[in-house]
């Protein structure tokens, strides 16, 4: 019984040790995947998740692509829920595609076949909702433990049964630090889990109104099933991706094409099926169709259901869906159908549908309401839930943040590997020497130390192995397990300083900085490349209409003068002083501004509405300030407001007719026929409207480069100068053109557009072709200039960043001239900067330069970039890319204009993966910057005007660009220094902690005798030395914040991970070894005569260990004190406090006979030590001696100054003249670089 217990304890010990080892292995391979992977496993393998591009979601999860939006408010996901009546056809489809079902919760998986066996053909299956949090809150700890140890070496459990390691230290000794680490980490994880749970619940348990059986039912948002009709009222967010069915607005705006002023009571039976594409992340793309069947004859069956039929991969699978089973009852849809008209699309499939009485309508991105968006300006809408949970576009767009790992962590892992090698080699050396020593005659089994029967029985090799393990356990303290806790705590607590910083508080929004992840604090001190967005980041995104140019004449509005026509004419560049364009042209231009947009008028309240009615009568002037506009882009508003200044007011869109009030206060009404949406490729948008007189007009506005080719050249010449001049002044310019469509032209365009919209395949391409076809032969009427002011202190910030050695790249979608002027304004380009332009326009330029010592700026545009990235011959791709990188890396500033959002991310990725893998930082404010923010090592969001998308996806969010300076130069710098020191110090202090223990093995016959007492072994990292370094790593300011901000160049001193490279690591290691040797041998020489007391009594091995340990604790603490440059009271308290605690603890520990200890090893050892003068003297001298080199080094080190180094900027081949050419010929693009 007893022996069984002992065996049990033995194996427990072994288990603990194994776990220590496992943890090391795991920690070594520590990556985000560890916990996440497990958390992903917990999520029921929703094989339901459709296959996308032949890769299942599961696969993607394996590759770490879809990290779940853990704890992100608004993106939290509800369970994948799918409820459907499944026909046997569908089943066959699915099984063909290899789907199998898994019951969640119990992780009970059945293959589809089995499933269908057990259930009727029309079975219903439901997936339980699951939560984003890893596990139910209460089970977190045990769950955590499982998570923690699961990745250990497989089968170690079995080994434990027969390998029982003799423990040199008690299991508590090794186990306690581990336990501590696990507890702390578990608490942290649990806390984060709890937060996630809360966030999840906010999203998942969010009450929504669902129409069920004709009644509104309140439901939790996670219970929404695909096909439910959901009601959303104003200012609510959409709980999932919805297809808009009906909106309360009567004017037909709100992007809906199905507006019918019916109320709920008129509901009649209607059957519809929605076909849509597989869930895909592109927010701006959606292709779907809705089939609506003849209403059934029964009177209003009061259930409202729209069943989606998933469009499966192959188009042919569509036929397997038995459509008649999918029913829905909804009257308004029928009306919609009548509007769109049946039978417009002709594939055989539709004939089938039509034979069933179905009519068809197309669904595009404008019909889809994305989850997370908020309903504005509309009281109520109804929509069909289409994608829910993880399949919403938002969720699919979510990229795991956890993939970001800081360079410091990589360094830690490298160091850990070194220390693991040290540990293993120490164990091997000791084991080997032990057996060498024992092989000598008489040493194997001296009479005083006979072997136990068990030892005699065990196999020699097994014994060697257990000895090896014992040494591993003995030396395992060299691996700073507790460092992980300290690092995590440091990061977690340290990040509060960013949130707390009052300098980051913006008076406008009354908010400070936001830290979304604390893992990257130190990365802020390592940034080498800064990628910044222009609009909203460098500039305020506060658009103001500055001037316009009509027919070659320049108009500039002045506020103080508002006479009859509201125009003031300033001198035009074409020297037509005091001239104006013709009145007709003016009015046409202003009408174009009023009509060609997607702006909505915001109604401030009911009285405003009545005001508007009055306004229609032309009696009352609506005060302009009260009129709010909502638009997707602020420059549209600026244009509408600009037109307002000149007397043309846009009143709103009601039932597809746009109303404007002209200068004569007459109301003009235009029927809106088509909107040709803006897209970044075309870079223009158009509207087709019909006047009261029946004329059909097309108004188009867009970037000059996209408009000029589509209008008459002679018109271009008149306006081009204006546009270019405005662009150089830093304004955003747009050109406006129009075209009158004849009835036939319109008919062609109309059918073409409708057909293209209904297309399921290649809809984009078809639409694009149609748009291009319609938008030709226009005539240019004018151009506008909108100013976007620079952010406060943008220039200073940019200058500081450059001074800190960072390379600033501006990535913008704007045109080159505008962006260039912004760059000049931000002082990214200086007067002396030589600009290298690589744009389609300058392709033929050959440039040469000889001055090597100059600043270079580089400009490239999107088109050229795509030429570079995707050259006609694949072989050139890497060559081009390398050349491009080389050039860019040698320029001080790079401007990339005309970038698509994806290209931004592409550039970031390219730089990130370039040689030396520099640390990149992206800063932006808009949704178009999200990809770039996620791609960069550190993503920074600006709490700007363009919503919270960027903020939500960023790692850090700041209110203004100017805060970036302090964030990087002060916070980043300090964090980096702190954590680097923390890491080095931890390795150092554990090395000099365990080295004496290793050396001691040579003096005790390799018997695994520990040098220190178990209490000391356990407490060393937990209590005695942990707090000072934590305080240091939170409070240290080796250089004060003001100086860091004033001298940006100081940032360069820590560039390239300077404090965690191998050199400093070697220095710390050597220091640790030196001190370890000193501690051990210093005391060893003292102990050559262990009679150290004046009464001749001798000290034993525990005194030896205690003296070494005392020296050790004092030395490492004082070493930290030497390194501390910023002594706050906390540092004083913690440093002196932990020394005092050590002394107090030692007295206490040695002062009592502890009943739970078998051996009172340390009983009065410490007190006895203090009673010996020699011990005092040796402690003092050893502390002094071990700190002496450090003091000397500090004194002799060259003082670090802000002017110490200058960055070298060189072009790839300086000295010789370099010709850089990109020539374009008709067929091929070639890019050559020659010396």
């Amino acid at each position: 019984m007893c022996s069984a217990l002992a065996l049990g304890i033995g194996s427990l010990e072994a288990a603990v040790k194994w776990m220590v080892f496992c943890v090391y292995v795991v920690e070594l391979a520590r990556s985000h995947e560890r916990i996440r992977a497990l958390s992903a496993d917990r999520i029921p393998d929703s094989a339901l998740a459709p296959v996308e591009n032949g890769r299942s979601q599961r696969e993607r999860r394996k590759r770490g692509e879809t990290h779940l939006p853990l704890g992100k408010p608004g993106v939290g996901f509800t369970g994948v829920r799918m409820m459907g009546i499944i026909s046997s056809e569908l089943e066959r489809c699915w099984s063909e595609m290899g789907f199998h079902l898994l019951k969640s919760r119990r992780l009970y998986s059945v293959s589809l076949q089995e499933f269908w066996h057990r259930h009727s053909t029309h079975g219903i299956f439901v997936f339980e909702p699951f939560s984003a949090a890893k596990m139910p809150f209460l089970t977190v700890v045990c769950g955590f433990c499982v998570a923690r140890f699961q990745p250990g070496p497989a089968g170690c459990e079995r080994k434990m049964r027969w390998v029982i390691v003799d423990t040199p230290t008690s299991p508590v000794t090794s186990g306690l630090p581990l336990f501590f680490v696990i507890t702390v980490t578990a608490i942290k994880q649990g806390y984060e889990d709890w937060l996630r749970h809360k966030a999840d619940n906010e999203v998942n348990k969010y009450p929504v109104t669902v129409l069920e059986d004709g009644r509104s039912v309140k439901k939790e948002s996670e219970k929404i099933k695909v096909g439910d009709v959901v009601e959303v009222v104003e200012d609510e967010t959409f709980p999932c991706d919805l297809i808009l069915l009906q909106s309360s607005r009567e004017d037909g705006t709100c992007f809906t094409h199905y507006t019918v002023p019916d109320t709920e009571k008129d509901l009649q039976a209607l059957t519809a099926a929605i076909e849509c594409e597989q869930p895909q992340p592109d927010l701006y793309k959606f292709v779907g169709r809705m089939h609506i069947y003849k209403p059934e004859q029964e009177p209003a069956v009061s259930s409202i259901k729209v069943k989606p039929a998933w469009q499966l991969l192959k188009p042919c699978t569509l036929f397997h869906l038995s459509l008649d089973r999918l029913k829905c009852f909804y009257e308004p849809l029928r009306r919609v159908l009548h509007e769109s008209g049946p039978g417009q699309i002709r594939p055989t499939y539709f004939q089938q549908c039509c034979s069933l009485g179905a009519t068809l309508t197309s669904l595009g991105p404008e019909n889809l309401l994305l989850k997370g968006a908020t309903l504005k300006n509309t009281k109520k809408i109804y929509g069909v839930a289409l994608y829910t949970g993880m399949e919403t576009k938002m969720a699919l767009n979510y990229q795991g943040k956890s993939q970001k790992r800081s360079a410091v962590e990589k360094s830690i892992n490298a160091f850990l590997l070194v220390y693991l090698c040290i540990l293993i080699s120490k164990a091997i050396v000791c084991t080997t020497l032990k057996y060498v020593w024992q092989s000598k005659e008489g040493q194997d089994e001296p009479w005083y130390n006979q072997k136990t029967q068990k030892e005699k029985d065990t196999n020699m090799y097994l014994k060697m192995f257990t000895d090896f393990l014992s040494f591993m356990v003995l030396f395992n303290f060299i691996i700073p397990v507790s460092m992980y806790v300290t690092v995590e705590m440091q990061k977690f607590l340290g990040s509060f300083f960013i949130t707390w910083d009052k300098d980051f508080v913006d008076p406008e929004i009354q908010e400070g900085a936001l830290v979304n992840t604390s893992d990257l604090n130190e990365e802020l001190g390592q940034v080498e490349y800064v990628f910044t967005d222009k609009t909203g980041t460098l500039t305020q995104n506060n658009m103001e209409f500055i001037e316009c140019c009509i027919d070659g004449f320049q108009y500039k509005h002045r506020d103080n003068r508002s006479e009859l026509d509201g125009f003031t004419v300033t001198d035009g560049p074409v020297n037509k002083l005091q001239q104006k364009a013709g009145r007709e042209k003016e009015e046409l231009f202003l009408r174009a501004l009023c009509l060609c947009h997607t702006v909505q008028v915001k109604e401030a309240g009911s009285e405003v509405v009545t005001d508007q009615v009055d306004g229609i009568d032309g009696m009352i002037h609506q005060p302009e300030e009260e009129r709010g506009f909502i638009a997707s882009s602020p420059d549209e508003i600026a244009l509408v407001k600009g037109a307002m200044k000149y007397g043309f007011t846009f009143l709103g869109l009601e039932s597809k007719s746009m109303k404007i009030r002209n200068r004569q206060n007459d109301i003009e009404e235009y029927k809106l026929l088509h909107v040709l949406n803006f897209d970044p490729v075309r870079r223009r948008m158009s509207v087709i409207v019909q006047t009261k007189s029946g004329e059909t007009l097309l108004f188009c506005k867009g970037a000059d480069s996209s408009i000029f080719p589509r209008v008459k050249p002679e018109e271009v010449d008149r306006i081009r100068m204006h546009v270019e001049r405005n662009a150089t002044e830093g304004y955003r310019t747009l050109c406006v053109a129009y075209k009158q469509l004849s009835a036939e032209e319109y008919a062609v365009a109309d059918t073409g557009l409708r057909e293209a919209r209904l297309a399921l395949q290649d809809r984009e391409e078809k639409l694009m072709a149609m748009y291009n076809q319609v938008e030709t032969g226009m005539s240019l009427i004018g151009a506008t200039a909108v100013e976007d002011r620079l952010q406060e202190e943008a220039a200073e910030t940019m200058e500081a960043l450059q001074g800190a050695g960072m390379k600033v790249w501006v990535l913008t979608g704007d045109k080159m001239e505008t962006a260039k002027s912004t760059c000049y304004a931000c002082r990214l380009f200086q007067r002396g900067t030589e600009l290298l332009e690589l744009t389609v326009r300058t392709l033929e330029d050959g440039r040469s330069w000889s001055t090597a010592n100059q600043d270079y700026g580089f400009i490239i545009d999107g088109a050229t970039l795509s030429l570079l990235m995707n050259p006609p011959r694949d072989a050139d791709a890497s060559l081009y890319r390398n050349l491009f990188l080389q050039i860019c890396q040698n320029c001080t500033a790079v401007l990339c204009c005309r970038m698509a959002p994806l290209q931004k991310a592409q550039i970031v990725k390219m730089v990130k993966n370039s040689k030396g893998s520099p640390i990149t930082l992206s800063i932006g404010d808009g949704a178009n910057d999200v990809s770039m923010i996620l791609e960069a090592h550190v993503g920074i969001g600006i709490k700007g005007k363009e919503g919270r998308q960027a903020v939500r996806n960023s790692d850090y969010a700041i209110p203004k660009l100017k805060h970036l300076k302090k964030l990087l130069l002060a916070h980043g710098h300090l964090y980096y220094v702190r954590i680097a020191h923390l890491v080095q110090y931890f390795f150092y202090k554990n090395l000099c902690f365990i080295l004496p223990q290793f050396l001691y093995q040579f003096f005790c016959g390799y018997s695994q005798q520990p040098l220190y007492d178990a209490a000391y072994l356990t407490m060393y990292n937990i209590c005695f030395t942990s707090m000072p370094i934590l305080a240091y790593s939170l409070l240290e300011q080796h250089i004060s914040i003001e100086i860091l901000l004033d001298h940006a160049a100081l940032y360069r001193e820590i560039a390239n991970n300077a404090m965690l490279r191998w050199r400093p690591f070697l220095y710390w290691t050597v220091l640790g070894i030196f001190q370890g040797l000193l501690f051990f041998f210093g005391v060893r020489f003292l102990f050559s005569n262990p009679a150290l007391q004046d009464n001749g009594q001798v000290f034993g091995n525990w005194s030896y260990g205690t003296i070494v340990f005392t020296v050790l604790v004092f030395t490492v603490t004082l070493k930290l004190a030497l390194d501390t440059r910023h002594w706050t009271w906390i540092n004083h308290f913690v440093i002196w406090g932990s020394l005092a605690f050590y002394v107090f603890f030692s007295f206490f520990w040695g002062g009592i006979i502890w009943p739970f200890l078998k051996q009172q090893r340390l009983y009065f050892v410490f007190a006895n030590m203090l009673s010996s003068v020699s011990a005092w003297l040796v402690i003092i001298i050893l502390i002094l001696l071990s700190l002496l080199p450090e003091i000397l080094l500090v004194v002799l080190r060259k003082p670090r100054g802000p002017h110490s180094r200058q960055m070298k900027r060189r072009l790839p081949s300086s000295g010789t003249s370099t010709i850089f050419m990109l020539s374009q010929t008709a067929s091929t693009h070639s890019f050559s670089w020659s010396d």
Partner: protein
Amino acid sequence: MMASSYSAKEEDGHHSGSAGLGGTAIRTRKPDNTAFKQQRLPAWQPILTAGTVLPAFFVIGLIFIPIGIGLYVTSNNIKEFEIDYTGTDMSSPCFNCSQSFSWNSTTPCKCILSFSLDQPFEEPSKECEPYRTNENKPIAPCGAIANSMFNDTLDLFYIDPNGTKTQIPLIKKGIAWWTDKHVKFRNPGSNPNLTAVFKETAKPVNWRKPVYELDTDPENNGFINEDFIVWMRTAALPTFRKLYRIIQKKNNMTPTLPRGNYSLEVIYNYPVRSFEGRKRMILSTISWMGGKNPFLGIAYITVGSICFFLGVVLLFIHHKYGNRNNNSDIPN
């Protein structure tokens, strides 16, 4: 020793109070303006420079060298005499052998008699195995350490010039730590008759006598036998010495051990030849710093000199380059 600047930011201290008051009224998302949260806690910022460390080196040098000299002299004044009585031949162990030596120190002092063992000492970490039971009785005291207790007997005789041998009185008590003897080691039970107490136990395999016969003095018998306690305080290093007996100082006038010839008589029990160990008897005087150990004195003198030397070097450097260095210092 260190140049320091004290940068208290008082205005922040004031703010913190008012911010706290304001914060209660309206909970804004604005962070508190406290010195801690703004990382503006008043701090002492010491900077080690040549100018500040220099005097420290001189001071250390000046303090350490005298201490070192004092230690060295003390250590040198300690008289120590050592006899290796292991014997050379395995077949003729030196049982009851006696060795003569002369002692010529006349200072009255406390002397100690120690034995020194030179064995590749292995710390047995296993609790009691394999010395837990013998013949189905529990061994008392159990364990390998107790089992290997040193059991030679050393006696010291003064040989008068006329040839008579006088035994030097050796004191058995006071060789173990007071706390060990009085607190840590206890005889089991309250029964003073140790023979009865230990009746059910067996003696350790290698012992000649059971534990209750270690001494006749009941205050020094059983587990509280001081020889046993001394042995149980395991030594740190393989070559170790342990206090065996104390020779009490008589008074301040007469030398503790008169000058003359002495004879050491050994009852040889403890086998060390099997592992090539050595046994020594050491007779030594004792001082305030313990036994003879020149290491400390030398270390202090060396470190003191190094510091002094470094001070000189630094002074030189400071004078030659000091001005240049100061200019490029980071302003603080």
